[in-house]
């Protein structure tokens, strides 16, 4: 294979257009305001916001969501191409900028890329964009042939007139089509007629990632650029008291030492290494106040109090759980906890900014281009119309790059050095200690079983941190954070509880430590699935029943179907190799139904081996089965890494972990074989990037309990001795 052959899908108009993706900025240059607006390549014909056709039949599909490895750009392009009826081998892609989106009345709608929403929330309008473009191309060909459009059809980027057999390619009629009014309505194809969507096509962005050519935010460069690196107060919420710039100003390459936001110091130098070296030598003093008294122990005490506090927000209530449990033949109770987690994207946070008197431009990886644009405007003090963000490839997102704190910092520094592009890079240590962490919670579960082992009542008290209270207080509902109940909600299409329990109370005592919480791949489905699915096994054991059979009696149909699919595929209930045990779990999240079966063994010495995970997913529609398999397998690495090692602890108000030596993550030798089972019902659109993570932990913990008789209720596993008798 030659690179030339595999490079056919490289966009060609990006340098001349107002849109860019990684390849266009590899040379490192400012796009400037002259490139906004209508500065397309003359030969590029925009049929609508989503579709541009070139004379050589190349199709450029615009992608508003951010690609971060989850495959959204390929999946969205498949949906557009499906309706467009174009030749998939001619498809390439580009990002519009958030600034251009605003100027065009948000024609690309939402840029936010989180909550597994790329495809499930934009499938309708991107498919309509493809279909409208197709109709315009057909109409243009029909006009040229002077025949009714109804006699013409399109396939594989070629329009054919049925009567005469005449043919025209998309490129030949694109200019004429672009002049036509778009159709008011289009009919979308039936899923059973899909030829590109629904198929395991390869990702559009792979080649540059195997040759080192892919440009991430951290790789971006431009003439005259300086590099900055930052140290914020080690205690989140603390302030900068003083710093002694004179001590480092004469060090090699140093250009400037500045304080920003009253809580951080920044060294600007000619290179990152020089900036970092000087920052390490910069004397700083911090004002941390009473935050210095906070520790993991004090946070645990705060949350423990919440487990029995009289006041709590009610998230899901059926009947009278307390009375049912009080009157039950058998009562089961357990307390679980789930620690802070860090995203640990492989690429630490960074952004490049250029601020002048009347404009602000930012180049960065972001999961939310529009939020990054707002941050650039706020930090620069310039109106949003004078700002823009050029999105670059993300070296991992997982929710972390939905926040724009690093964009703000870059712009603040660039504002101090107007006219000089500033690339602000965080060290791994800065990244590890200044995240928006997966929130910390504890959970007390109490269940009542009748004499026949039926679950008659269940109380679930969650105590702990709310993400919305910290990041999006406007989204609280009468003070309650509805997202806390992900996977346990009373209903809805997003994250509903799957069990029919006659008497149920799930509530949340909100307790918010100062450590900033954030959205972490899978968000609150993660710990809620651990709490509920591990406790279901505890209830089944108390009832003397098999965990699968116990669940099947309680589960609603769609939840039950996906669990059965996983169990069947894994051979649940059939003999396993000696010493191997199965654990199961299920949950609904991000609109999808998922279940997992873990096969583990624990050696007499206490060594855990996760042999295999069988995962079933009903995401409604399957847009790319190969990419879903990769998301499912990948999400288990994320979820299992948290099970095995993931934990952020607090001492003297600061995060203790600083790098991979103090925060281990899963590597290839611990990776189980993952088998993915897709059971789409084609009656809804669910997400796939996140939901399956949540079944990893409870399935493994349930299997460990079977293997060892030990019920692990606090993560990570590295703190637990799994040896029998220990």
């Amino acid at each position, binding site marked *: 294979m*030659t690179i030339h052959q595999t490079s056919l899908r490289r966009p060609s108009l990006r340098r001349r257009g107002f849109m860019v993706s990684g390849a266009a900025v590899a040379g490192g240059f400012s796009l400037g305001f002259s490139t906004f607006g209508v500065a397309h390549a003359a030969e590029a014909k925009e049929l609508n916001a989503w579709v541009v056709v070139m004379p050589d039949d190349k199709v450029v599909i615009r992608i508003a969501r951010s690609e971060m490895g989850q495959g959204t750009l390929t999946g969205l392009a498949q949906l557009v191409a499906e309706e467009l009826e174009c030749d998939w081998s001619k498809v390439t892609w580009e990002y519009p900028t958030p600034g251009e989106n605003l100027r065009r009345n948000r024609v690309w709608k939402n840029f936010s890329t989180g909550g597994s929403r790329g495809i499930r929330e934009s499938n309708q309008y991107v498919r309509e964009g493809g279909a409208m473009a197709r109709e315009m191309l057909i109409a243009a060909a029909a006009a040229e042939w002077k025949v009714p459009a109804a006699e013409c059809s399109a396939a594989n980027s070629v329009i054919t007139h049925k009567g005469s057999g005449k043919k025209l390619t998309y490129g030949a009629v694109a200019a004429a089509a672009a002049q036509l009014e778009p159709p008011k309505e289009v009919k979308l194809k039936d899923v059973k007629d899909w030829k590109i969507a629904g198929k395991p096509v390869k990702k559009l962005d*792979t080649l540059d990632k*195997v040759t*080192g050519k892919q440009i991430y935010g951290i790789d971006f460069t431009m003439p005259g650029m300086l590099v900055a690196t930052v140290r914020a107060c080690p205690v989140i919420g603390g302030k900068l008291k003083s710093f002694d710039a004179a001590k480092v100003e004469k060090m090699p390459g140093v250009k400037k030492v500045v304080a920003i936001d009253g809580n951080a110091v920044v060294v600007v130098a000619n290179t990152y290494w020089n900036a970092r070296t000087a920052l390490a030598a910069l004397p700083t003093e911090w004002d941390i106040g009473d935050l210095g008294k906070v520790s993991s122990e004090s946070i645990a005490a705060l949350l423990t109090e919440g487990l029995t506090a009289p006041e709590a927000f009610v998230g899901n209530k059926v009947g009278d759980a307390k009375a049912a449990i009080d009157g039950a033949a058998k009562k089961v109770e357990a307390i679980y906890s789930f620690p802070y987690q860090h995203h640990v994207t492989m690429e*630490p946070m960074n952004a490049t900014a250029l601020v002048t008197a009347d404009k602000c431009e930012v180049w960065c990886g972001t999961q939310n281009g529009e939020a990054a644009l707002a941050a650039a405007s706020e930090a620069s003090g310039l109106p949003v119309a004078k700002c823009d963000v050029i999105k670059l490839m993300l*070296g991992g997102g997982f929710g972390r790059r939905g926040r724009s704190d690093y964009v703000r910092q870059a712009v603040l520094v660039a504002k101090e050095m107007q006219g000089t592009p500033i690339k602000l890079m965080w060290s791994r240590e800065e990244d590890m200690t200044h995240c928006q962490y997966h929130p910390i919670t504890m959970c007390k579960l109490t269940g009542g079983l009748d004499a026949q082992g039926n679950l008659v009542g269940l109380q679930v008290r969650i105590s702990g941190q709310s993400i919305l209270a910290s990041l999006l207080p406007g989204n609280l509902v009468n003070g309650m954070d509805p997202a806390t109940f992900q996977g346990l909600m009373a209903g809805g299409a997003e994250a509903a509880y799957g069990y029919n329990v006659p008497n149920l109370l799930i509530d949340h005592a909100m307790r918010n430590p100062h450590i900033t919480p954030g959205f972490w791949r899978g968000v609150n489905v993660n710990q809620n699935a651990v709490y509920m699915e591990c406790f279901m096994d505890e209830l089944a054991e108390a009832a003397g029943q098999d965990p699968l059979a116990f669940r099947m009696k309680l589960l609603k149909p769609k939840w039950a179907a996906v669990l059965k699919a996983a169990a069947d595929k894994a051979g649940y209930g059939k003999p396993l190799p000696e010493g191997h045990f199965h654990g199961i779990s299920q949950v609904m999240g991000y609109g999808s139904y998922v279940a997992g079966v873990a096969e583990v063994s624990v050696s007499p010495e206490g060594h855990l081996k996760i042999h295999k995970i069988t995962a079933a997913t009903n995401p409604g529609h399957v847009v790319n089965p190969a990419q879903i398999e*990769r998301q499912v397998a990948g999400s288990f690495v994320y979820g299992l*890494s948290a099970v095995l090692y993931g934990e952020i602890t607090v001492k003297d108000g600061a995060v203790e972990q600083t790098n*991979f030596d103090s925060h281990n993550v899963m590597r290839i030798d611990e990776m189980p074989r993952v088998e993915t089972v897709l059971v789409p019902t084609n009656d809804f659109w669910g997400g796939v990037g996140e939901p399956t993570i949540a079944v990893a932990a409870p399935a493994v913990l349930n299997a460990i309990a079977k293997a060892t008789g030990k019920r692990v209720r606090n993560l990570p596993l590295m703190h637990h001795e799994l040896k029998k008798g220990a």
Partner: protein
Amino acid sequence: MAVLNVNGKALNHSADPRTPLLWVLREQLNLTGTKYGCGIAQCGSCTVHIDGVATRSCQVPVNSVGNRKITTIEALAANGTLTKIQQAWVELDVPQCGYCQSGMIMAATALLAAKPKPTDADIDAAITNICRCGTYQQVREAIHAAAKA
């Protein structure tokens, strides 16, 4: 000015002698395919070959390299043809975000040079690079596929 033997060329740089090789490659020689992930030789994103040995360049002071041959990800397909490992990576659509993949490919390349038919245990021992997207299953498959190619 000092000289480094990188990808078959003698390249000049002006970095402080104690600067890690990683940052000389990235910031002086514009070879940004080699990535920064941790700076403490844990994650493997910065893996390059020094005289054919997979090495974490973030912990190699540039003045310790001498005239040894440095190979980066950019040189693997220098003649325009993907190596069989890169080809396997493309065929199996391995990368997700892709940030760790340069290091993964450099580590896999060194593994196959040393052990043309690696076992799963060989892969476990040699590929200690961190991937957070979770491409491990595809990485393993791609190494086996390249070994058979």
